[in-house]
Structures are given as structure tokens and as C-alpha cells.
């Protein structure tokens, strides 16, 4: 009898003991598994920069940052040794991109090609995410205006600014398939107020495809191609291949492309060069990001 009482009481006490002494680490791990299953996380850095080669990526300049972009295209490689394989000539676009919020960016640019001025606004509409209520893709909308300011060869034509303006509307749909591989599709609509030839369409439809493959942490290979569903006569589709090198606040993009212009309505719709004929430019973009406004450390 005595023994039984002792045993049961001891058992009882031990029970309490083990009920009280919970393992904090175990609880925490169980809780975190539960919490993670309800968590949604946005996919970051689908592309390294706001531009892939000539065209945009889904990325917008982050809030408070100013991105100074120098885009440079040498002459055509097939110009031969007299033109030092194109390196004697160059066209350029200088651009300033600014992030108003992390999802809304604006930018302006000046190109030597047709002495163009351009401006754009870019808005992230959907962000790829993982976890709870995940989205498999990201979508960004782009709207741009390009104005040619080059004087007309014939001063009697009296072209207005409106005549020299084109509008770009683009949806950029992207997916980061893995930390190293990202692909985007760019359905594009371009409207020209005045077209080069009488039979050319004012409204142009095209579809771009762009991709980047990371080779190392700071090095990626990029490619982009724009297919035109209808087009100005005498122009070709734009194809570009490049390499991205990232160093801290800079991104260097080196590439080969058959396009001379660097604004949407020019490189998509007015590419006069052909890869097959060797009409290829060597070029580079340099992006330098400056911090204008600090991001708050505590949201």
C-alpha cells in the first residue's frame, strides 16, 4: 500500500514536472513552421537594373534613388578598319531615372540619335511572390513619350512637335525562375503621329522577349529580341546580346546590337541594321546609382 502511494505520488509529481518544463526551442520551431506557411514573400532582384540592354526590365528605380545612365553605341562593326570597326563613331543616350516609391519610377533622357528627348513613367502592377497567396509572375506597366528634335532636312516641310512625337505603351511580364534565371515578355504598342512613308502604319504592335542568366554573383549574360507584328517598311527586328557586370553602386552592361536608337519607339520600330549583314554595334550602358533620399530604417 505504502509503496503504491509513493509510486503514484512520485509519478504524479514527475508528470507535473515534465508538463511544466517545456523546451522553448521546440515551441519556437513549431511556431515558426506554422508562421512561415502563412507568409508571403516578394521575389527581389529579378533583374539587376531597370534596363536589360536597350529595353526596360520589370525593375523600377528604388525609392529615393537617382540612377544616372550613360548608354553608348559605337558605329557598325562592318564599317571596316578605316572606321576602326565602328569605334570611331558613337551615338549616346544620357538618362536620369528616379524612384518616387519602390513601385513607381520616372525618367528622362536625351539621345544623339535624331536628337531625341524622351520621358517615361513606370509602375509595378504585380510582384512575383512565394508562400501564401503567391503570384508566379511580376507585371510592370511602362508609358513613354519620345520627341525627335532633329531639324528637318527640308525647312519648307514645317513639321510640328506633335508630328515628331511617338508614344509607347508596354506591359512587362517577368518571372524569376531561379536565383540565376529570369525571363520577361514585353507586349508593346507604339503610336507614331507621323510615319516615314505613306503606307506605313501609325499603330505598331510588337512583342519583346528578354532574359538574363547569372554566371556568378556579379556577372550575368543577357539577351533581348523584339518581334514586330506590323512594321515600317525597310526596318528589321531588334536583337541584342550582352553581359552585365555589377560592382557595388555601378552596373556595367556591354553588348552587341543591331539597333542604333535607344528609346522604345526607335529600337523596336526603327532598327535599320541587320545582324546577317554584319550591321552590329558594340555598345555599353553604365548605371550609377546615387542616394538622394534615405529610406526609413523603421517602417
Amino acid at each position: 500500500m505504502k509503496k503504491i502511494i509513493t509510486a503514484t505520488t512520485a509519478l504524479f509529481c514527475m508528470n507535473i514536472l515534465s508538463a511544466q518544463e517545456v523546451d522553448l526551442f521546440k515551441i519556437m520551431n513549431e511556431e515558426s513552421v506554422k508562421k512561415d506557411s502563412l507568409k508571403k514573400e516578394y521575389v527581389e532582384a529579378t533583374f539587376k537594373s531597370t534596363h536589360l540592354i536597350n529595353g526596360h526590365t520589370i525593375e523600377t528605380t528604388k525609392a529615393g534613388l537617382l540612377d544616372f545612365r550613360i548608354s553608348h553605341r559605337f558605329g557598325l562593326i562592318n564599317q571596316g578598319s578605316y572606321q576602326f570597326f565602328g569605334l570611331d563613331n558613337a551615338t549616346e543616350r544620357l538618362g536620369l531615372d528616379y524612384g518616387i516609391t519602390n513601385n513607381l519610377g520616372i525618367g528622362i533622357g536625351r539621345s544623339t540619335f535624331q536628337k531625341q528627348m524622351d520621358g517615361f513613367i513606370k509602375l509595378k502592377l504585380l510582384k512575383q511572390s512565394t508562400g501564401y497567396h503567391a503570384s508566379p509572375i511580376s507585371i510592370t506597366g511602362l508609358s513613354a513619350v519620345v520627341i525627335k528634335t532633329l531639324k528637318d532636312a527640308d525647312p519648307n516641310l514645317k513639321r510640328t512637335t506633335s508630328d515628331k512625337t511617338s508614344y509607347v505603351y508596354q506591359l512587362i511580364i517577368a518571372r524569376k525562375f531561379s536565383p540565376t534565371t529570369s525571363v520577361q515578355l514585353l507586349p508593346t504598342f507604339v503610336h507614331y503621329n507621323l510615319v516615314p512613308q505613306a503606307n506605313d502604319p501609325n499603330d505598331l504592335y510588337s512583342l519583346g522577349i528578354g532574359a538574363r542568366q547569372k554566371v556568378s554573383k556579379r556577372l550575368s549574360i543577357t539577351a533581348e529580341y523584339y518581334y514586330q507584328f506590323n512594321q515600317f517598311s525597310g526596318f528589321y527586328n531588334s536583337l541584342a546580346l550582352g553581359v552585365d557586370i555589377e560592382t557595388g553602386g555601378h552596373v556595367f552592361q556591354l553588348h552587341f546590337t543591331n539597333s542604333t536608337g535607344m528609346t522604345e519607339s526607335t529600337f523596336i520600330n526603327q532598327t535599320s541594321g541587320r545582324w546577317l549583314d554584319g550591321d552590329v554595334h558594340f555598345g555599353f550602358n553604365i548605371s550609377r546609382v546615387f542616394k538622394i533620399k534615405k529610406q526609413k530604417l523603421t517602417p
Partner: protein
Amino acid sequence: MKQLLFALLLLCTNTVVSAQKIYQTKSGKISFYSAALLENIEAINNQVDSKLSNNGQLIFMVAIKGFRFENATMQEHFNENYMDSDKYPKAVFQGRISNLADVNFGKDGNYKTTVTGVLDMHGVKQPVTALGTIEVKAGKVSTKSSFKAKLADYNIKGTLIGDKIAKELTITVDCKYD
């Protein structure tokens, strides 16, 4: 017989009295700071999950992507180039208060403590001993600590480390428990 029962009962009561109490928070703060030649780097995460038990167990769990920097580009580089946050989304510290006897959770005061444990970060587990304080005030408990971590110990690499980025960080913990 009666005495024995009484003794046993007393033992049970004892256990109940010394019941384990768990303090927890989901909004603790962990920040780190590195002073470097070109640029000071600072980031804060104020969604730290932490639990503290009066048996001396202590745990901090933090999402790496939750660290905010003043410079958004720096934040992106931190996650992508240094911490590989997709692969190692969390850092966890599990430890014990070595001098638990010096802390009285039932009495207001500022108790100096030493915590020893393991910090699991960037896929590497390293033993850590940190000095800190536990403050008890009107039943509320808070912890504070600051310690140094070498990036190389956690296999965090990058060409800028040692040049633009310091080799060692100061990690500061500040948690107020419910």
C-alpha cells in the same frame, strides 16, 4: 506514512511554485552596424521573434530579408550577394543564461547576464557568448545585448569585405517581452 505523503505533496507544490514562465515578443529589435572607411552600414529589423524562459532558455529568430537599410540598393545587395537570403532566409540564436541564479524575474531590477549559445546564420553555426542585461520592471521583462560577429566565421564573402565593408559587425539586440 502521513509525514511521507505530506512530504511528497510538498514536493509537488514546490514544482508548481517554481513553474516555468515564458516571456515572448514578435516585435523585438536587432540591428547591426559596421564602421568602414568609405561608408557606415546600418540596418534594423524590428520584427524579431524572441522567447525567454525563466529556466534560462533564450531564443531569437530573425528574417534576413526583414533588415532595412537606408539605401535600398544596399539592402538588395545584402540579401542577394552577401546573405543569400533565398537559401538562408533566417538567422537563429539559441542560448542559455549562464548566470541564471543572479536573475530574479519576480523582482524589479537590472540584471547583468552572460548568455552562451549558438548563432545559426548563413548556413553556419557558431558558438557565441554575449554580455547583456535583463531588466525587470513592473512584471515586464526586456533584454539588451551587443556583441561582435566576424563575417568570415559565417562564410559571408565578397570582394568589398575588408575594403568598403568592415570584416566585423556589431550586433545589437533590444527586445521588450509581453
